[in-house]
């Protein structure tokens, strides 16, 4: 391989980034002269990510694609990498104002807005809703939460106290929290997990949804979930959720390689590439599953 490109996730224990990795590996193979290295902190922790980047700077790799764990911290690291002559782009989570050359990924605010709009569209009558988030420290998740709130502002939807709950990316905890919130507010009309966590535990999610199946079918309880991994699509197909809004992590991985290669070749690249969102409901789920 002529070029060694590194893709640094926020946390390796999040299955979302596996798709980015797979996309990156596939594209690297297609391009032939590229090696894709996937390495990040195991848990979501900014200082560890900064140290890993430093190690790659020492190794003089040819390019870095980072999913930014903390903007201020990464701004410094990116500056150091750039100073060492290594081009840096960001994916999935951006560090605007840093020396990164490009950002590839979702506009998280819009992502949140899309989730909110989807809910408003399906249930214009409104009600009480709650959100489940991954962790309080993640900026992109905070943006999604804001997006959902913004989309539902002025509608008949009201957020319950104690929302969002934080599941620390733990699927089991996410399902437990959804169950608890439904217990706490029996007239809760919707839950919007702003990441796929609860559905990463398909049986747990099914158990939760089955208990509320009547309400889901009768339109009294709505589940709009972020992300569109395969198991999530299957759950949607089987009627355990109402809608999914997904990002395209695989594409992020692919585009990251393309962009870094283009930069290396001295080509001009667009500063922001939004990979777009997939809106999935009952109507188009069969097509997505193909």
């Amino acid at each position, binding site marked *: 391989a002529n070029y060694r490109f590194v893709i640094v996730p926020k946390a*390796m*224990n*999040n*299955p979302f980034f*596996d798709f980015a*990795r797979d996309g990156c590996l596939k594209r690297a193979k297609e391009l032939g002269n590229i090696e894709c290295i996937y390495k990040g902190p*195991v*848990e979501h922790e900014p200082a560890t990510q900064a140290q890993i980047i430093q190690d790659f700077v020492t190794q003089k790799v040819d390019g870095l694609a980072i999913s930014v764990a903390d903007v201020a911290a990464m701004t410094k690291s990116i500056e150091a990498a750039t100073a060492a002559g290594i081009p840096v782009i960001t994916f999935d989570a951006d560090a605007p104002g840093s020396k990164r050359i490009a950002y590839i990924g979702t506009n998280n605010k819009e992502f949140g807005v899309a989730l909110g709009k989807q809910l408003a569209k399906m249930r214009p009558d409104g009600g009480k809703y709650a959100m489940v988030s991954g962790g*309080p420290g993640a900026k992109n998740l905070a943006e999604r939460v804001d997006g959902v709130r913004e989309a539902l502002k002025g509608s008949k939807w009201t957020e*319950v*106290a*104690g*929302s*969002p*709950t*934080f599941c*620390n*990316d*733990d*699927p*089991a905890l996410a*399902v*437990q*929290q959804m*169950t*608890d*919130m439904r*217990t*706490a*507010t*029996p007239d809760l009309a919707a839950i919007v997990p702003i990441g796929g966590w609860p559905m*990463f*535990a*398909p*049986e*747990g*999610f*099914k*158990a939760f949804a089955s*208990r509320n199946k009547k309400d889901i079918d009768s339109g009294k309880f709505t589940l709009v979930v972020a992300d569109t991994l395969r*198991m999530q699509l299957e759950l949607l197909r089987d009627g355990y959720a109402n809608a999914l809004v997904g990002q395209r992590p695989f594409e992020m991985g692919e585009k990251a390689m393309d962009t870094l290669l283009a930069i290396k070749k001295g080509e001009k690249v667009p500063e922001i590439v939004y990979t777009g969102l997939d809106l999935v409901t009952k109507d188009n789920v069969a097509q997505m599953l193909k």
Partner: protein
Amino acid sequence: MMAMPMESPISFTNVGRIRWWQRGIFATQTGYVLLALAVLLVIMHFASPYFFTEGNMQNVAKNFSFIAIATLGVTFVIITGGIDLSVGSMMCFSAMITSMVMTELSAPGSPAGSLFVHMAADGKTVIANVPGLILLVSMLAGLGVALVAGLVNGFCIAVLGLSPFVTTLGMLSIVRGLGYVVSNGRGSFPGGPDADYFYALTSGDVLGLPVPFIYLVILALAMAVVLHHTSFGRHVFALGGNEKAAELTGIPVVRVKIEVYVICALAAGLQGIIISGWLGSAPANMATSYELNVIAAAVIGGANLAGGIGGPLGAIVGCVLLEVIRNGLVLAQVSSYWQQTLVGVIIILAVLVDRIRSRMT
């Protein structure tokens, strides 16, 4: 019997009767944490009218059973004065191996699978053997890796004499890493014709009781018998009380130590398999940092990290307490930011209740 004449008979005239409140559970931390738990339940009842609903109680029962079995295992280790930080990773790895083996054995084309299933003419998978055999083999595989990890822990600690903290911290890392390696970071899902048995066995209900809760009760009773009515249990306590003395009095210290780490690993493995059955998946980040919760549950329930004290009731009480705090705070709709702070405060207050006892004597 007495060979020599006695000057005055042996008697215990200065020993009175032990009152009921100086005895048994009332003389242990477990009893007082139970008291704190009762207080907490009352508070939660007032904080949320839904707390004491049947559905929520079932939930609580299921959720605490999810860490309680592993807590039973770690309690053995803690009683001997050791610690096992690898329980979280162990849960994940066992669960993962179980589902991977299950999926593998259920794939008609695969080399191992051909022994267990074959493809019928209509393209459906047919079980070639006794139904449930795949499940059995895959669960044994999952518990098998736990056994191996437990043996390695026990060997390093008992035979090589390494510090339990460092050894099991290393094992935490090793097992978690292996989980990533075998699944390529993706985790795995139970699948195949036996998956339904698997779900029934891990997340079903019997007479309204969640099955994990039933397993827990059975295992806790077994543990109580083992600890207090077998010589193995005696030796576990003796080891925790004074390891040197245990060695000198001819207790097979090495064997007992290896056994407790194996028990702990097996309990964690079983726990992981049960959780994965409920989740319907064994993600690679499953049970991350559960080790602290599990150890904390044991310690809150009265086990002493210095060794020599602990039991199944305490382990369960600790788990219930942690789960009630978690569940209660969500039900009470406390802001998520404050929740974490309150969890800490309540944990400290709960063990503080135990000080009433010490002050009284």
